[in-house]
């Protein structure tokens, strides 16, 4: 009996320690970290708003990593897979860590731009839910470790646009002229039109891409602006009334503006996985492995999941009852509530170049 109480007490103390912040993590925790690479640098290239950064008393993940390992993190951000690809491909800059989405990982693997990840050194890899291992873009799970999972939906402000129809068509609705937003990156932008037209997001027919582009051009007269992360400011302040974005970001906006609502459109939507990868031009491979393992650490993964608001593939987070978004219906919908979804795949280079040019046409229109 005493033993049980003792275990219970230690558990209690431990959880108290956690709740009062990671800053006070004990020496034993630090000892887990290898400081042999202290003094080296790690170049991390990530999406904007995609790591817990220490604001509002959260954990500053990069700073913690620096403290634990003595490795200096140079952190920079991008706003689309395409920008990241462009930077990486140009040879102007090299990175040790990148976090692309599924279809981009497929492309990077095809173009030999990724280095295999030595999973033996990722001791926390077991924490990844099996359904997020060996995914279609990396069937043997050699190049990527899943970081986040998400779906695209529509965020709206009922005080401005009322209750819109649960369809992608609302973004074309003249009622919402100058109130609606759309994506400024090609894959997501095309997706909104492809879903309306009922075409595959990975269509190999040029005519279908063309038709989607024409639809997008039509929508420009209604649109207020093309956005990526600018949508935060616009939705939170009521500057815009309706716009598509990633579900997790909706939950973050909700913290600032509680009026906001969200739906997955009836036509279906895109589901995506963003995974941590190491580019083949990596300079500090060992440190990159340490960083990946660090991101999977239960406490770090929890802090990230709560800050970013996306669905986590990490079972230690998903099963944690103290997790802020534990069982959240938007992030973790039950099977019967799950909308129709489709992943993006890397497409034949000819088609890709065709739709990239079409997207420029849309932007220029």
């Amino acid at each position, binding site marked *: 009996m005493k033993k049980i109480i003792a275990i219970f007490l230690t558990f209690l103390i431990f959880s108290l320690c956690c709740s009062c912040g990671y800053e006070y993590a004990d020496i034993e925790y630090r000892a887990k970290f290898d400081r042999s690479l202290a003094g080296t640098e790690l170049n991390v290239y990530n999406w904007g708003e995609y790591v817990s950064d220490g604001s509002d008393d959260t954990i500053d993940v990069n700073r913690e990593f620096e403290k634990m390992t003595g490795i200096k993190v140079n952190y920079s951000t991008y706003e689309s897979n*395409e*920008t990241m*690809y462009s930077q990486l491909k140009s040879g102007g800059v090299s990175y040790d860590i990148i976090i692309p989405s599924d279809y981009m990982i497929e492309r990077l693997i095809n173009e030999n731009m990724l280095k295999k990840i030595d999973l033996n050194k990722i001791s926390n890899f077991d924490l990844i839910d099996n359904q997020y291992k060996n995914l279609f873009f990396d069937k043997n799970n050699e190049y990527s470790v899943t970081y986040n999972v998400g779906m695209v939906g529509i965020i709206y402000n009922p005080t401005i646009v009322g209750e819109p129809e649960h369809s992608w068509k609302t973004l074309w609705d003249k009622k919402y002229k*100058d109130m609606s937003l759309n994506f400024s990156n090609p894959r997501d932008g095309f997706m909104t039109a492809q879903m309306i037209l009922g075409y595959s997001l990975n269509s190999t027919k040029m005519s279908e891409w063309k038709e989607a582009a024409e639809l997008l051009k039509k929508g420009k007269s209604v649109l207020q*602006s093309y956005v990526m992360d600018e949508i935060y400011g616009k939705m939170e*302040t*009521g*500057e815009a009334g309706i716009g598509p974005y990633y579900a997790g970001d909706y939950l973050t906006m909700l913290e600032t503006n509680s009026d906001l609502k969200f739906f997955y459109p009836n036509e279906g939507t895109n589901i995506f996985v963003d995974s941590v990868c190491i580019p083949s031009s990596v300079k500090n491979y060992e440190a990159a492995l340490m960083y990946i393992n660090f991101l999977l650490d239960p406490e770090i993964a929890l802090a990230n999941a709560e800050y970013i608001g996306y669905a986590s593939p990490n079972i230690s987070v998903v099963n944690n009852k103290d997790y802020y978004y534990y069982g959240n219906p938007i992030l973790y919908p039950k099977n019967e509530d799950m909308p129709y979804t489709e992943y993006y795949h890397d497409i034949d280079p000819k088609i890709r*170049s065709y739709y990239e040019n079409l997207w420029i046409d849309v932007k*220029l229109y």
Partner: protein
Amino acid sequence: MNKKSFGSRLVAAPYYVWAAIFIIVPLLIMFYFALTDQNGAFTFANIMGIAKYKKAFLISIIYAVIATVITLVISYPMSYFMTKMKISSQRMILLIVMLPMWMNFLIRTYSLITILANKGIINTILTSLGLKPLHLINTPGAVILGMVYDFIPYMILPIYSVMSKIDNSLLEAASDLGSNGFSRLKNIILPLSLPGVISGITMVFVPSVSTFYISQKLGGNKNLLIGDAIEYLFNVGPDFYNIASALSLVLMVMILLCLAVMNRFSSDEEDLIV
């Protein structure tokens, strides 16, 4: 004597080397990219492909011209009034005009959003007065306003500096000879201030026509200006470097042509080969 001047000419040698490597060669490389395809084979396709961007060129030019005209119309009287002030207040105003130039232009542009937004400062004032809010942000007007705001000091300063050098006795002589205010303006001030106007126009037009960012933030990222298009293409991937280089090349040629035309108007002591 000859030796000395040879020595003085030689001190510029490091600069010539620098200019050759970092001014001339980069332009040649851009030229090379513009005239080749992804595999390095010679092609005119990129130059031909520019037709697709004619709308972006057209909007950029129209916006830049409007912005330049507006800045000129605002700045000319401003500069004139400044020269009529006491020397100490002239210095003060000059400082005030220059100060925003040291502010980051991204920040200056961004804070315009706060003023123009649908729920921004202007509209808050309007609605609190019981008036209907205006649609200001994400319009061509907002983009042009951004250009005017960002580049206006570059118009005021050169015009002011030329005007302040106009000899006052010249004006007095003219009025003694019976010319009225208008004819003094037309016959003395305007022609004498022309060099300042010309350099002001080029200093506002060039950054306006080639800007990126302003339209992205104030225009809702809907109408790509040519600068935005170039920046976008560089961010799609190296496959698009060739067409982006072709666009840059055309932009550069266009700007140099404008400068050449402008140079005809001003009798500049600095002769240039353009």
